C-alpha cells in the first residue's frame, strides 16, 4: 500500500536502502517502453515540455513579440497617435538621429551621473552598515529589518512623498538641513534648482536602495569562515591587514553582484524620478527612460523612440554581459 505522506517517504529513503536512484532506473528499465508509457503516465520529456511550454509562450507573447515589433517600428516613421497615416520605411535614419541627438546625450549624461553616484554611495554606506551589523550586537536582527523597509516600498509612491519632504517652504528635508547648517530653509530648492535636482534624486535612491547593497554584503561577510580569521590571528596579522587581505577580497564578488543589479535597475530607472522631478527642472534630471517616455508617449514619435529603446536595450544587455564576465573572473580567482 502506498503512503502518500512525504515524511514517510523520506523515512524510507533515510533507511539504508542501497541507492534509490538506481532502483528507480532499474524499475523503469525492466518495463517495456510502450507499457511504461501507459502505466507511468507521460514520459519525462513530454512533461518537461508541458511544464516549460506555457512560461515560454507567455514570455514570447509579452516580451519577444513586442521586442520584434519594436525593432520593426524603429525602421519606420510610424506615429501611434496617427494610426491611419501611411507608414514609410526610413532605413536607419532613426538610429542615426538617436545617436547624434544632443538631447539624448544630455539624458545619457544625467543617467551616468545618477548611476555613478547612487552606486558609489550605496556601496560605501551599504558595505559599512553590513560590516557593523556583522559585529552581531544585541538586537541586530530587529534593526536590520527596520533598515530594510525602504527598499520594499513602491518607488512611485516613494518619489511622490519625497516631493513633499523636499518642498522648500514646508518640507521636512529643508527644515532639517536648515537646522543643521544654519542656512535658511527657503533659500534652496532641492527639486526646483538645476544644480540641486540631480542630487535630490541621488539622495532618494540612496535612501531607498542602500539596504539592498547592505543585505548582499552582509551575506558575503557571513560566508567567510571563522577559521580563516583564526589562522590569521595565529599568524598575528593586524586587524587592518585582516580586513584588506581577507574580508575585502572575499566580499568583493558579492559587492560586484550588488553593483550589477543596482546598475541594471538604475539604468532603466523611471518611476521614482518621474514622480519626484519628472525630468525637470528643464532636463536636469531627465534620465534615459524619462526621455524615452516623453518621445514615445508625449511627442508620439513612435518610430524614433523605438530606435532609442533598442539602443538602450542593447546597452544594458552589453554592459550586463561584460560585467557578468568580470564577476565570474573575480569569483574563480
Amino acid at each position: 500500500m502506498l503512503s502518500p505522506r512525504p515524511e514517510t517517504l523520506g523515512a524510507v529513503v533515510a533507511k539504508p536502502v542501497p541507492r534509490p536512484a538506481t532502483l528507480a532506473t532499474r524499475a523503469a528499465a525492466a518495463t517495456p517502453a510502450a507499457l511504461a508509457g501507459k502505466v507511468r503516465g507521460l514520459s519525462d520529456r513530454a512533461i518537461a515540455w508541458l511544464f516549460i511550454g506555457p512560461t515560454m509562450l507567455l514570455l514570447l507573447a509579452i516580451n519577444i513579440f513586442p521586442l520584434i515589433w519594436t525593432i520593426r517600428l524603429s525602421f519606420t516613421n510610424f506615429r501611434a497617435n496617427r494610426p491611419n497615416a501611411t507608414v514609410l520605411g526610413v532605413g536607419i535614419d532613426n538610429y542615426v538621429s538617436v545617436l547624434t541627438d544632443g538631447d539624448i546625450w544630455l539624458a545619457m549624461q544625467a543617467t551616468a551621473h545618477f548611476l555613478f553616484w547612487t552606486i558609489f554611495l550605496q556601496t560605501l554606506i551599504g558595505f559599512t552598515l553590513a560590516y557593523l551589523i556583522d559585529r552581531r550586537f544585541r538586537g541586530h536582527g530587529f534593526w536590520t529589518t527596520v533598515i530594510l523597509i525602504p527598499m520594499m516600498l513602491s518607488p512611485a509612491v516613494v518619489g511622490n512623498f519625497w516631493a513633499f519632504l523636499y518642498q522648500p517652504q514646508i518640507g521636512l528635508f529643508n527644515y532639517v538641513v536648515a537646522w543643521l547648517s544654519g542656512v535658511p530653509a527657503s533659500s534652496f530648492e532641492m527639486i526646483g534648482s538645476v544644480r540641486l535636482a540631480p542630487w535630490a534624486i541621488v539622495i532618494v535612491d540612496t535612501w531607498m536602495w542602500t539596504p539592498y547593497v547592505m543585505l548582499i554584503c552582509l551575506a558575503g561577510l557571513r560566508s567567510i569562515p571563522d577559521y580563516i580569521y583564526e589562522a590569521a590571528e595565529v599568524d598575528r596579522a593586524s586587524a587592518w591587514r585582516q580586513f584588506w587581505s581577507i574580508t575585502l577580497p572575499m566580499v568583493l564578488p558579492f559587492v560586484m553582484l550588488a553593483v550589477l543589479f543596482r546598475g541594471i535597475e538604475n539604468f532603466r530607472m523611471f518611476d521614482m524620478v518621474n514622480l519626484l522631478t519628472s525630468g525637470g527642472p528643464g532636463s536636469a534630471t531627465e534620465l534615459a527612460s524619462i526621455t524615452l517616455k516623453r518621445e514615445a508617449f508625449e511627442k508620439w514619435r513612435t518610430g524614433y523612440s523605438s530606435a532609442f529603446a533598442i539602443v538602450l536595450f542593447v546597452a544594458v544587455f552589453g554592459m550586463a554581459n561584460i560585467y557578468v564576465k568580470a564577476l565570474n573572473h573575480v569569483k574563480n580567482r
Partner: protein
Amino acid sequence: MHRGITTAHSVVEPGPRMRVAAGSLVVLYALITIVPLAWIILTSFKTPSDAISYPPKVLFTPSTEGYCNLFTTRSRQTPEYIAALPPATGRCDQVARNAGMVVAGPSNYVPRFVNSLIIAFGSTVLSVGLGVMAAYAFSRFKVPLKDDLLFFILSTRMMPPIAVAIPIYLMYRELGLSDTRLGMIVLYSAVNVSLAVWLLKGFIDEIPREYEEAAMVDGYTRLQAFRKVVLPQATTGIVATAIFCLIFAWNEYAFAVLLTSGTAQTAPPFIPIIIGEGGQDWPAVAAGTTLFLLPILVFTVLLRKHLLRGITFGAVRK
C-alpha cells in the same frame, strides 16, 4: 594559561566595546532612515493647514481629515446652504462641513485599491503557477539548451519597462486589452514569471530527488510525485516567491501609468494625483500612501529570512 585566549568564544568574536559602537551606529542609521516614512504616517493624521505649517509640526491635534478627504469627493458650498442642510450623518460629513464643504460622493481610492488587489493576486497566481512547473522541469529534467533558456528568461526582466511599453501599448489597443484588469494581470505575470522560475528552481533544487524517486518506485507517476511529494515540500519556497511577486505587482508604476487610465488603474498612478483645492491635498495623499504601504510593511517582516534570495533571483542563498 595565556591571557589572550582564555575567553570561551572564538578569537574572532568582536569585543564588547566594538559591539556597542557598531550597534549604536546601526541604530542611528535605522532611526534616520525611518524618519521619512514616519513623517508620512504622521502627516496622514494632520489637518491640511498643520501639514504645510512652518516649522514642521511634530506635536499636533490628530485629525481624520486626511482619511476623510481620501475616501470622499467634496464640493464647496455657501455657509447659508450648509446651515440649511439636515444634521451631518457621519464623521467625514461633519469634517467636510467644518471646512465649508459638502460630501459629494465616494472618491476613486477604493476602486483603485481593489484593482491593485485583483491585479496583484491574479498575476501572482498565474506567474507562480507557471513558474513552479517550469522550475520543476528545469530542476529535474535534461532540457536542451537549459542554461540558455534560463538566461533568456532572466534577460526578459532586464528590458527597460518603457521600451516594452511602446509595442505593448499598440498590441493591447489592437486586442482591446488596454485599461483592462486581464491585460494587466497577463503583463505582470510575464514580468514576474522570470523571478518565479529562478527563485523556485533554487528552492526545488534543495529538495532531494530521492523523495520523488522513492515515490515513483512505489508506483506514483511523475505527475503524482510532483503533486504529492514535491509541491508540499516546496511550500515555503512557493509562499516566499508568491510574496515577492505580490510586492512587485503591488508596487509597479511604469506599465500602470502608461496602459491604464480608468477601470483598471491601480493605486500607484492614482495616489500622486489626489488633489484638493489649490494643489495637492498632502494629508489625503499621505493617508493614501500609508494605507497602500501597510501591507508591504507586514510582508517585509514575514519575508525577512528569504529577502536575500528574492532580491538576487536566488543567486545568493546564505
